[in-house]
């Protein structure tokens, strides 16, 4: 079955980001396809490559990157939510004349249309948030 995942909550906030990750992992292990994980609202903060959590804690952004690399998952960050919160990829850095970028590997910035498409193209769209 084809799944879309929507993450509306930032990392280390409550539990939604962890739940989304564990659900996604379990779905892959069960042989399902993850069409896309869409990060919206504070969820865009899951895509920062500048996070340095304590060594004995889970590294939430890296964990998403690794899962995406291993399973070829499309990790999409909402552009409007990202701009508000200072999540920037090299292209956005140029476009908005910023002096840095911070989007982690395997994440990409795109629009809400990608969420709508995930809703249309998948069998199930599962939402995690606060």
């Amino acid at each position, binding site marked *: *079955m084809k*799944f879309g995942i929507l993450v*509306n909550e930032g990392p280390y906030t*409550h*539990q*939604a980001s962890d*739940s989304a990750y*564990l*659900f996604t*992992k*379990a*779905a892959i*292990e*069960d042989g*399902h396809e993850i069409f896309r994980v869409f990060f919206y609202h504070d969820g865009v903060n899951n895509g920062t490559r500048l996070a340095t959590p304590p060594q004995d804690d889970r590294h939430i952004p890296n964990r998403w990157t690794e899962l995406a690399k291993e399973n070829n998952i499309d990790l999409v960050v909402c552009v409007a939510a990202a701009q508000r919160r200072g999540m920037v990829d090299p292209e956005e850095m140029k476009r908005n004349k910023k002096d840095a970028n911070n989007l982690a590997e395997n994440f990409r910035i795109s629009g809400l249309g990608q969420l709508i498409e995930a809703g249309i193209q998948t069998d*199930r*769209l*599962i*939402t*995690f*948030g*606060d």
Partner: protein
Amino acid sequence: MLHTINKSPFEKNSLQTCLRVAPDKSNILLIEDGVYAALKNTDFEKNILEGQKIHKFYVLEPDLKARGLDIKSLIPNIDIIDYKGFVKLTVENSRVQNWL
């Protein structure tokens, strides 16, 4: 239809709202702080017992464990499942509503 509830009923009224509008024979999965609704001897127990007459309840075991909640302290007839079971529920139910 599957509903997921991720808030304690003592914090938000999402479970109450869900119970009010859920079609008969819904599957209701308690995750994150939602697992507190599965406890016996709370003010909310009667709502679950009432809901069990028309719906099936599930609770996510890792989230129970994370909160140090004992399986023995749960209302009877709530199925205890893991993430694999969570995925299975989303496959079996053609519609999923994630109450936030």
